[in-house]
């Protein structure tokens, strides 16, 4: 082997080191490929939304580029009363759903994680199981039920149904977060004279705030993007939310106004994207909370 290096400041880059560098750059290259593939559709959405109908149907040049960018599509949508209705409806229903879901979830999670009562363990498992019952199984019988309540074609039926999509998982997340709060905190508060409701409000909610934010984001995302239930139960434009509204309204006959459709998709995707951009860590925490927190 080589002779001992006399000068201790001569640092040899070992071949192990070089191997690790190669692995790192290889990883970046592979990740870049995936990123490109993943971002192709959003990119195309943006590109199309900036095109006029004329440019789209002319089909000259690459569809991946915009030759005469225009904001007409956006302007049209913003001033289009139906679209405004859809947006407001979505916003309203989502806010209501989030409020209702979080209230129900937090109360139930607090009860199930801290205050045992007969059957609470079964109930926890049951809550988790209901999350696994998909909307596509329930929407047919619910059609009848919503009919009985006279809420067909009434947006408020969603206020009752959307929480069923969010509550099970939100409860489950919150149970996980609440369980990780040490019991000594409760006991200290009890000695200090607090009631259970106070413990919930003054201790659990502040301490478990990351979980609450994550669950709220989840409820928001689910409510904003729901498609099957509104498609099945809402029929007139003034009751519709964005997801159904865009599809049933903007797609007229054979004349596809793709510039407007894509612009509408963009505008409709903004709230989740914005929330995601600012609260990404909570977003991810919500996803992984279930499995890794057990």
């Amino acid at each position, binding site marked *: 082997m080589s002779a001992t*290096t006399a000068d201790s400041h001569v640092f040899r880059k070992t071949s*192990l080191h070089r191997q690790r560098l190669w692995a790192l750059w290889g990883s970046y290259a592979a990740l870049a490929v995936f990123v490109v593939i993943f971002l192709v559709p959003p990119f195309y959405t943006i590109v199309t939304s900036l095109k006029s109908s004329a440019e789209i149907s002319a089909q000259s040049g690459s569809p991946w580029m915009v030759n005469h960018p225009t904001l007409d599509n956006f302007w049209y949508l913003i001033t289009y009363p139906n679209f405004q209705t859809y947006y407001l409806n979505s916003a309203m229903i989502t806010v209501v759903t989030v409020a209702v879901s979080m209230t129900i979830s937090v109360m139930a999670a607090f009860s199930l994680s801290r205050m045992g009562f007969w059957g609470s363990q079964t109930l926890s498992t049951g809550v988790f199981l209901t999350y696994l019952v998909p909307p596509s199984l329930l929407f047919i019988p619910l059609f009848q039920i919503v009919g009985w309540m006279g809420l067909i074609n009434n947006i408020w039926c969603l206020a009752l149904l959307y929480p069923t999509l969010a509550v099970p998982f939100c409860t489950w997340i919150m149970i996980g977060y609440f369980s990780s709060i040490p019991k000594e905190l409760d006991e200290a508060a009890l000695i200090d004279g607090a009631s259970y409701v106070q413990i919930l409000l003054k201790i659990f909610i502040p301490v478990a705030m990351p979980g609450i934010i994550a669950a709220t984001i989840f409820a928001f995302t689910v409510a904003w993007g729901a498609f099957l239930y509104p498609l099945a139960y809402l029929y007139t434009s003034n009751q519709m939310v964005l997801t159904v509204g865009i599809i049933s309204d903007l797609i007229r006959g054979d004349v596809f106004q793709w510039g407007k459709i894509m612009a509408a998709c963009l505008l409709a995707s903004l709230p989740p994207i914005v929330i995601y951009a600012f609260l990404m860590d909570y977003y991810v925490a919500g996803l992984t909370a279930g499995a890794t927190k057990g």
Partner: protein
Amino acid sequence: MAEVSCRKVVKEYDGGVQAVKGIDLEIADHEFVVLVGPSGCGKSTTLRMIAGLEEITGGEIWIGGDVVNDVPPRDRDIAMVFQNYALYPHMSVFDNMAFGLKLRKFPKDEIKRRVDEAARILDIGMLLDRKPRALSGGQRQRVAMGRAIVRNPKVFLFDEPLSNLDAKLRVQMRTEIKKVHQTVKTTTVYVTHDQIEAMTLADRVVVMNHGVIEQVGTPAEVYHRPTSRFVAGFIGSPAMNFLPCHIDEAGGGGLMVRVNDAVKIKIPAERTARYMPFKGKEMVFGIRPEHLTQRKEEGRPGFEPVDLLVDVVEPMGMETMVHFFVDGAPICARLDPETSAEPEKMLGLTADMNQMHIMEKETGKVV
């Protein structure tokens, strides 16, 4: 079995932080060497470089006559026992121990023979079918050692293996490790921050501090003949007493240690020549607590009287620790349990000055 050799080994992290600053260490075949020092002194980093888990920034490491800088851990023929045991949770004890051998395609009966033999040495034969989570801390540690033994490697590496165990178990496992080394005799490099472990287990102790080796020597050497203030203060519990002092002339051509006007102790005659160059200078005086006693040793050469004011008395049963203050510096003495020491009273002690040390104030070097 093999020798391990570190030559001018340096570990530097991004940003220029040097965890290990050029150490030289020769470990002989079959030797049990302990790297000891406070947190952050570089001992674990050095061990991990020997293992191949950290890249070597500079210098060379040799195992058994070959340079191993570029050799990955799996080809270095070493075995390691981790602080957190690092047992594979999904495998049984048997499979944990057999894993390395299976990877190397050993025949099944050979694997069984080795695992049974290691289990016998470590007394874990009845645990072979269990999973790690069904074992206690001490049992897990033994399985981790078993995993190392079956490989029959050139070198054993231990990274603070007893730190996660409670005090009683630690004492027990210490003896086990020593027994295993007597049986298997593999070259061992052992890292710990506990100097008692170092003293009881090592053939030689390597005291490290801030990325450099302060002293290498047998336990007796580092205990009785430390070469620096750091080693003197690190080895031995309770720690050595340190007092700032001056070397002054005492009558008859001799020298004395003067801490203050009340505390002056004569230096033994045979050391006069050694300390003469430092006459009049400010130095640091060191003496171990067990060398301050109440026994009257009049006349014995090197045993000098000294009177100190008692601060706190701590009866320990087998001895009594008495604490004093001299000019604000704490001093501790290990006295007989029947001592007459009382707080706020003067106590007459005898200092065994044959065991004293004088250190330079700035460098800490023992002179």
